[in-house]
């Protein structure tokens, strides 16, 4: 990478302010166009037929009656999505998940789809499709799926990562192991040990906007798609691979996005829409209903986790161990491995061991959800840490401070840490007024830490200077949390112009080079790096243009405060040239002025946060109310502090919902019972207090302004922070998330 991304401390003018967001007016007036808001001439409406069974062999699909229905223009099944994956198992899983081939593997698995002239015809056509199923035994629970008598979803799966390899197939796809030292010896040194099993239920990201797209395939092999996604370039690649299209001939445009949180990093319905359009020869719009979103897209893993931690009486942890069992849906994946890597990452441990176990179940294919896999691991570990602190009689914050990882600590997932920020977040928590505020009757307080890996990735940005000196900035990372504002501020900072003179937009895949998705907390981190680079390239061009305008050597020009200055005794009387001055003459000094950047933004740096939570529990009903909540996290440098606070608050809100109410509830028949927001309860504003935030700014050495990703870490501590608070309030350790009223009442009853 030729761009020097090293941190350079300097005074910043635009960065760190709180201007109005450029997309705000469109969003509050309803003009913003989301996935379902786009239409094409001659467009058809798609609907998907889904399996009502949790596990069933597909014996026959007869679409003839549906195809014969007037107004139906195409019907597709797996036969219309031939396997082009060339042995790539993960790509095949995506294909099979989009349209079941030989077996329906969960309630809601797509088996056929129609495109018709309107929704009424499409619905009628679905009823005319005949599917013969051989219903098979199913399993949805993570622990039951590992039992010897569990129905096996995939007879080809022999557990990886164990020696010797098993001689029979099972639902356990893989074991992974991390750690160092000798945990047995460490536990032998412990004065006190806490050992418990925890469970977390499956949750959905709960994005308000469902998956939606309009796909249009042309007879010449080209195609385009308008879609709600976190990554148009990745959607383009995956869809092209699955449909056998040339990547450059598929143009993908991302709409505004009504939430993604990882769920829109994966394709679900988009290949089906393209297949329907290809068959019908007309554009096809496919919008998933809320029921479909719940049943067939994006949930996180359900988990079952054993934790054992030992410490001496002085509060030193001597050993820590965890076995983490995560569901991955019906296809192999590595979610438990990620959980195993993050579980003890906050601590400096001499002896630590984690084992991740990937478990297949008849539930939807698991997708990333904001710091995927980390919140569940943190729930188990931070609950056990809390118990151990109580057991040895040490303050929970002091216990964590004493054992916190620091520079030079060997992380539980392997490498030795460089400079990291968990210590400052814990110290800030200890000093925070929240920690010493009085509590009332039936109230309790908990706190917890969390860790996440951030990352950067491939990034491409174009910065164009218009004739009037205003700037358009084209980025390839979808704006999920205000990045158009942040990136405009960055461009303004570098160029030395007003924020209002920069207009940032998200480019389509035909207009800009490849960009990785907006995931891994990378949007502002990586695109700001590329924007800085593009702006500096544009400044180099403007210096050359100023040199031509003045007819002096470019070496005699300095860029300062948004202007070209001629330096040296012979040029002192030349008035500086602003961006507007230079832009106005661009047509006669070489044409349009632009700066481009293509880079890999690496060195994002790992992230830590500490949360404090107060709750009040009604002992009669078991209802819990969060009455105060504080998030403390390092942002490196908060480009737009209001949006950083928004990320902290949003992650906390989602985590609180996960901790208290949200869960997939399956019936005995393996069918999802609560596929809607009435029965799957995410927190609304009236459920939450104002979530306080404290932004720490410890510069990231690998970013010119010190920026770190901030999007994901905030969802990691809340499950444990809430659980610790509830446990404090009711006097019983809560080990099963969500900590819903029935679970609290059951725990209270068991205690009596």
């Amino acid at each position: 990478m030729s761009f020097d991304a090293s941190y350079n401390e300097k005074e910043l003018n635009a960065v760190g302010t709180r201007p109005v967001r450029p997309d705000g007016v469109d969003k509050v007036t309803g003009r913003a166009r989301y996935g379902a808001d786009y239409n094409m001439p001659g467009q058809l409406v798609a609907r998907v037929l889904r399996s009502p069974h949790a596990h069933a062999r597909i014996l026959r699909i007869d679409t003839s009656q549906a195809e014969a229905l007037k107004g139906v223009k195409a019907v597709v099944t797996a036969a219309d999505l031939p396997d082009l994956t060339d042995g790539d198992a993960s790509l095949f899983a995506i294909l099979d998940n989009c349209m079941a081939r030989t077996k329906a593997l969960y309630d809601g698995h797509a088996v056929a789809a129609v495109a018709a002239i309107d929704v009424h015809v499409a619905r009628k056509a679905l009823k005319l499709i005949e599917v013969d199923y051989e219903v098979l035994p199913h399993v949805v629970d993570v622990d039951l799926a590992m039992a010897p008598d569990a129905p096996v979803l995939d007879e080809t799966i022999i557990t990886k990562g164990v020696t010797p390899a098993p001689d029979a197939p099972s639902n356990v796809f893989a074991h992974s192991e991390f750690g160092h030292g000798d945990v047995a010896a460490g536990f032998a040194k412990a004065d006190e040990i806490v050992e418990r099993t925890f469970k977390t239920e499956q949750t959905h990201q709960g994005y308000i906007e469902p998956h939606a797209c309009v796909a249009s395939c042309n007879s010449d092999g080209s195609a385009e798609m308008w879609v709600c996604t976190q990554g148009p370039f990745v959607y383009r690649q995956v869809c092209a691979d699955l449909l056998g299209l040339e990547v450059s001939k598929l143009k993908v445009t991302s709409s505004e996005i009504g939430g993604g949180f990882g769920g829109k990093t994966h394709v679900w319905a988009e290949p089906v829409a393209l297949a329907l359009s290809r068959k019908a020869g007309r554009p096809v719009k496919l919008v998933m209903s809320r029921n479909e979103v719940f049943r067939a897209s994006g949930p996180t893993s359900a988990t079952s986790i054993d934790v054992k931690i030992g410490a001496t009486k002085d509060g030193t942890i001597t050993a820590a161990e965890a076995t983490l069992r995560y569901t991955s849906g019906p296809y192999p994946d590595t979610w438990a491995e990620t959980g195993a890597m993050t579980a003890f990452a906050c601590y400096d441990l001499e002896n630590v061991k984690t084992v991740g176990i990937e478990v297949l179940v008849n539930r939807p294919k698991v997708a990333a959800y904001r710091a995927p896999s980390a919140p569940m691991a943190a729930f188990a570990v931070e609950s056990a840490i809390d118990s151990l602190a109580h057991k040895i009689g040490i303050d929970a914050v002091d216990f964590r401070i004493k054992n916190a990882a620091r520079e030079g600590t060997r992380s539980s997932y392997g490498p030795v840490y460089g400079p990291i920020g968990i210590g400052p977040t814990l110290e800030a928590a200890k000093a925070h007024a929240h920690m010493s505020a009085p509590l009332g009757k039936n109230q309790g307080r908990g706190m917890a830490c969390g860790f996440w890996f951030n990352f950067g990735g491939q990034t491409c940005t174009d910065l164009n200077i218009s004739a009037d000196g205003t700037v358009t900035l084209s980025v390839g990372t979808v704006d999920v949390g205000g990045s158009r504002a942040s990136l405009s501020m960055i461009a303004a900072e570098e160029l030395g112009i007003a924020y209002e003179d920069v207009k940032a937009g998200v480019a389509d895949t035909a207009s800009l080079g490849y960009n990785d998705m907006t995931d891994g907390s990378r949007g502002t981190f990586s695109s700001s790096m590329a924007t800085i680079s593009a702006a500096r390239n544009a400044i180099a061009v403007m210096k050359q243009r100023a040199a031509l305008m003045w007819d002096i050597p470019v070496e005699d020009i300095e860029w300062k405060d948004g202007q070209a200055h001629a330096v040296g005794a012979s040029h002192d009387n030349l008035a500086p040239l602003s961006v507007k001055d230079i832009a106005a003459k661009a047509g006669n000094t070489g044409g349009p002025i632009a700066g481009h950047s293509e880079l890999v933004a690496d060195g994002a740096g790992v992230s830590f946060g500490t949360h404090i939570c107060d709750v009040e529990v009604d002992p009669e009903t078991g209802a819990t109310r969060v009455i105060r909540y504080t998030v403390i996290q390092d942002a490196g440098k908060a480009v737009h502090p209001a949006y950083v606070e928004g990320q902290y608050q949003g992650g906390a809100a989602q985590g609180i919902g996960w901790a208290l109410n949200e869960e997939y509830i399956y019936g005995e028949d393996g069918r999802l019972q609560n596929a809607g927001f009435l029965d799957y309860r995410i927190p609304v504003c009236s459920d939450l207090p104002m979530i306080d935030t404290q932004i720490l700014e410890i510069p990231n050495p690998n970013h010119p302004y010190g920026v770190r990703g901030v999007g994901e870490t905030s969802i990691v501590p809340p499950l444990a922070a809430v659980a610790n608070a509830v446990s404090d309030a009711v006097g019983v350790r809560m080990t099963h998330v969500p900590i819903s009223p029935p679970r609290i009442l059951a725990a209270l009853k068991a205690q009596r």
Partner: protein
Amino acid sequence: MVQVTLWAGLRPLAEDQEHVTIEAATIRELLSKLQLRYPALEQPFRNDVAVAINGTIYRDDWSQGIPEDAEVFLMRRIPGG
């Protein structure tokens, strides 16, 4: 010489070695030489590996230099949300 630690999932593909010593000045050279020595690593090296150098994780920048005596760790690439 650089001592590289392989995460457990890679070890079966590298004759069960946890640590491998190799002469490499950049991540690209490191991965190339490792793959030459253990051809089975080719598959995970396509898209599954990140490299931690002195605790900083690199997922894509294979031109990154490896300082003398650096701690180098091969990790799985983590998904994001």
